[in-house]
């Protein structure tokens, strides 16, 4: 029974972890098991998955073990993940769209001056998704294209106009007040 619980525990931990988990972390949390024990349990789990034709297995990568779906389902999974209707963005896209939203109209070189990296790909993607559009050219040297956010952008976020964008301070100022109230002992630590 004890063995069965440990192997279930390995499964639960790998499943729930947001990042790949390595053997030592698993062994540490379970307690009283060696790295080899854990490795063996992972092997046993994968045998069980194969036998019962599960659509997933445990793979190693990213510095530890994690669950992965079997490659033959990727076509459908892709449909699900991409077409979910919820906005997904990379960190780079998020930063770029935030600069355009708050500093519009803005040129690509102005964005790159802040972010410090090439943003060509990200801008194309945002244009494709109709979150931003081109609105004229700057009067400065090279007359670069200027970008602004679109009506789709406003609609997605439920805004009536750009004036309604939350000012970062509105969201964070409250926080500062909270911290200074509760954390008056902070200086000591």
């Amino acid at each position: 029974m004890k063995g069965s619980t440990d192997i279930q525990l390995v499964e639960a931990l790998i499943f729930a972890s947001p990042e790949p988990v390595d053997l030592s972390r698993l062994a540490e949390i379970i307690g009283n098991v060696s790295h080899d024990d854990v490795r063996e349990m992972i092997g046993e789990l994968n045998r069980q998955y194969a036998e019962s034709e599960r659509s997933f297995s445990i793979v190693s990568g990213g510095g530890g073990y994690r669950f992965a779906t079997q490659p033959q389902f990727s076509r459908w999974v892709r449909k699900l993940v991409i077409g979910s209707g919820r906005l997904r963005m990379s960190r780079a896209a998020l930063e770029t769209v935030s600069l355009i939203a708050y500093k519009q109209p803005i040129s690509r070189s102005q964005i790159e001056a802040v972010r410090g990296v090439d943003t060509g790909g990200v801008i194309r993607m945002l244009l494709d998704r109709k979150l931003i559009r081109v609105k004229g050219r700057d009067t400065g040297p090279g007359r670069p294209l200027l970008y602004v956010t679109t009506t789709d952008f406003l609609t997605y976020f439920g805004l009536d106009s750009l004036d309604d964008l939350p000012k970062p301070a509105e969201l964070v100022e409250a926080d500062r007040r909270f911290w200074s109230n509760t954390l008056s002992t902070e200086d000591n630590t």
Partner: protein
Amino acid sequence: MSEVYQVSTPDYAGPMDLLVFMVRRRELDVAYISVGAIATDYLAWIDKTPSLDFDNAGDFILLAAILLQLKAAELLPSPKPEQFDLELLAGDQARSGEEIAALRETVMRLADLEEQQIDLFDGGGVYISGLDRELAGEMLADVTLYDIALAFRSLIRELPPERTHIIEDIPYSLEGQMAFIVSFFKDGKRLAFNRLAEALDSRLAVIMTFLAMLELMRIGSIAVRQPQPFGDLELELLDSRDER
């Protein structure tokens, strides 16, 4: 090499400093945490540990004290209501008693539901084979305005501050401040400069008033004395009309 003590309670397991951090951030309710039980566990752990690291022990005592303080603050009656002031909802917004009951029920229902759900963990990082990295791993799902505002804020914070010179209109004049000083003499002929300064609300006002004082000295309207080195200045009104 000293080991750092790990707290283990039904609601939290991990280092003590993280526990205090989370209580402060209100991610964890201190009401659920027994400081007594943590202290007892800690003493038991000390007994088992061959050599005591005084730095760590000091840290622990400090953190335990902070935790106790936070807990005490939570337990003390607060001048402001800590829970819904439902009567206020009834009065201020002219809501019905039905709504108050529904709201109270919502809180209880959510507390129950949370209790049922709290021990269920979703799959955290399932890797989707055959999907490019961008889509599978690095996408932020469900981007919100809050994310956009925070991203903008952190980008802007990293930038060097813009160098701007703001030219402000000075709301004081020499003549105005001279009249201001003279107005203080209506009760008598002597006046401490500190009394003047108390009535001034900015650095600029103090500077302008000081200049006005020098000007009044120059035209012979007042005399200024300093009885002690570094002491307060004493202003005396001279009867200028007599001299004329």
